[in-house]
């Protein structure tokens, strides 16, 4: 695949044809999926959200080399911000273009608050502190229904407004030019647009002065400092930026689902996003996208295959698909680190770094 891409770069015409083909495929995809079942469109939408999240985490883990194990907390902050400002819970119904930036800013603030004390320490402290932070956010979400009902506790927030622009609602199905655009399909196109923007931002970031500073810090912090990089601020920036991506993704999740509860923001989700980044290839945007797609779809496929296969072979369910999924995640993390530490599709610098073991 990488070779194929490299070859294409030498033939611009072939590249354009490929781009047009991929774009056409992505445009048609939701209708193909919808013909199999609307559930698959929803699954695809969630997968796109996870790509989104992994790209955000990739800034922190992949570019800057800081392991964040509580990333889902920022997603939760974004999701709850949206849910509380656009639902009957407080009777507020602000439009999404106001809430999403608020959510991103809040998540960013949390990121800075968490990062400031820990970023000057070694990376593994950061890992544990972020892990703890993720749990704390969940505990607060669960308990902040007393004495003032802020989050509605474990029941979560329901009836969250979908995205609307004027009278155009993303939740309503519509027929246009003889095609039925259901709610999920509309969200699919919106998410694709946003994803494109996010990917462009990430690619541009990687080649920017800031991106190079991140990579320099990851490779050798002391050397980076000697080159005049303010390592603490640049690390903080990575953390804040990753957090705000998480916040935006959270807001979109809220609007798409219409319902959120603390259950959606457990530790396992954080670990899943980390696995996506690690598996795909830390620091390489293409790799991360592939990692996120793999880990979003494989569990769904497992869900539909593991049960019938087990019933056919053993006559009953021996191992739940959820357990198999998690075991695969765990194994994938260990095996990847042992045999292919730079990921499925590694970034060049990262590969070099993992290759030279002293």
């Amino acid at each position: 695949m990488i070779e194929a891409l490299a070859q294409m770069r030498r033939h611009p015409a072939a590249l354009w044809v490929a781009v047009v083909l991929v774009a056409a495929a992505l445009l048609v995809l939701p209708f193909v999926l919808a013909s199999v079942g609307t559930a698959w469109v929803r699954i695809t939408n969630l997968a796109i959200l996870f790509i989104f999240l992994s790209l955000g985490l990739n800034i922190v883990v992949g570019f800057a080399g800081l392991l964040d194990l509580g990333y889902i907390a920022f997603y939760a902050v974004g999701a709850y911000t949206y849910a509380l400002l656009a639902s009957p819970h407080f009777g507020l119904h602000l439009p999404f273009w106001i809430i999403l930036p608020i959510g991103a800013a809040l998540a960013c603030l949390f990121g800075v608050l968490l990062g400031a004390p820990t970023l000057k320490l070694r990376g593994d402290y950061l890992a544990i502190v972020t892990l703890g932070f993720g749990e704390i956010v969940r505990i607060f979400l669960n308990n902040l229904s007393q004495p003032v009902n802020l989050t509605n506790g474990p029941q979560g927030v329901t009836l969250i407004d979908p995205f609307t622009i004027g009278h155009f609602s993303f939740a309503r199905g519509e027929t246009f030019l003889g095609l039925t655009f259901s709610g999920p399909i509309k969200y699919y196109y919106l998410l694709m647009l946003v994803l494109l923007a996010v990917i462009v931002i990430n690619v541009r970031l990687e080649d920017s002065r800031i991106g190079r500073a991140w990579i320099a810090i990851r490779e050798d912090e002391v050397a980076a400092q000697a080159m005049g990089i303010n390592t603490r601020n640049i690390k903080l920036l990575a953390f804040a930026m990753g957090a705000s991506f998480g916040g935006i993704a959270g807001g979109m999740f809220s609007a798409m689902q219409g319902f959120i509860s603390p259950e959606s923001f457990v530790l396992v989700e954080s670990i899943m996003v980390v696995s996506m980044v690690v598996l795909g290839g830390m620091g390489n945007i293409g790799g991360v996208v592939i990692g996120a797609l793999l880990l979003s779809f494989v569990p769904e496929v497992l869900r539909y295959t593991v049960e019938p296969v087990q019933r056919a072979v053993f006559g009953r369910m021996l191992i739940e698909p959820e357990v198999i999924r998690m075991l695969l995640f765990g194994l994938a993390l260990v095996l990847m680190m042992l045999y292919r530490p730079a990921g499925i599709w590694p970034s060049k610098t990262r590969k070099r770094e993992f290759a030279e073991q002293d």
Partner: protein
Amino acid sequence: MEIFLQQMINGLTLGSVYAIVALGYTMVYGIIQLINFAHGEVVMIGAMIALSVISALAGAHTGLAPVLIVLAGAACAIPVCMGVGYAMERVAYRPLRGAPRLAPLITAIGISIILQNVALMIWSRAPISFPQVMANPVFEVGGAHISAVQIAIILTSIAMMGGLTVLVYRTRLGIAMRATSENHQIAGLMGINVNKVIAFTFIVGAGLGAVAGVMVGTYYGVAHYTMGALLGMKAFAAAVLGGIGNLAGAMLGGILLGVVEALGAGYIGELTDLCRYPWLADMLAENCAQNQHFILFGSNYQDVFAFFVLIAVLVFRPSGLLGERVGDRA
């Protein structure tokens, strides 16, 4: 005052468990500068095995003395956990010893997911409860209550700490461990089998973890496949509080954290009851008249304290209470 004494007793009990788990973190960290993320899961496995064995023996009416049954549970849990600890080191950490720091950290997460789900497969989702094998007499001290199990936990952990101190400071193996933690290469040149010493450190840490697992299981009366994560995080906070890599620090940190947590849980409701503060009570007059209380944070926030302790230590004294050195490289 009675609440204070009671919470002190509870805190000491909990703290001795944290201390034992924290020792596992700190020993491994001291020797190879790795946070063994999966240590909490080892504790969980210890608790699960011990409770299963105890239930089986108690259900079989063997006529064994209750204390023997509990000891049998521990005797089964310890070797299994030691095996898990050794396997973990051998498979996931040893091959990565020279690799960038992120790599072993990620395998550690992988290992802990695997252990959790293996436990889920073996013991299912439902929590295992501890059978009532023995009477748990409760003694009264100055108005507060202390149970036999609590006394046993505190005494056992003191014994474990003493034993570990003797092992590290009075035996040849202990000298080898300390030498290895100073410098792997030079320790190797002195004729120490570094790999063996590191493996041994993991085994001892896991053994301690197993004992801690039995203690938590007996204390709370239940074990669950997810219990390791939070316990592990708290114990890590305790290790950092005491100064990671420092044995005495882990013990001190564990006990302090247990006491802070228990006292915090005991008093936070009272302290954040806004009706107690006259200038706020006026504002909330209606609420206060109706419910008597306006508690901002109740004892359900108990699990949050460890985290704030961790952050506070990292901000104000990153080397911990007793630690001297702290790495600053990512």
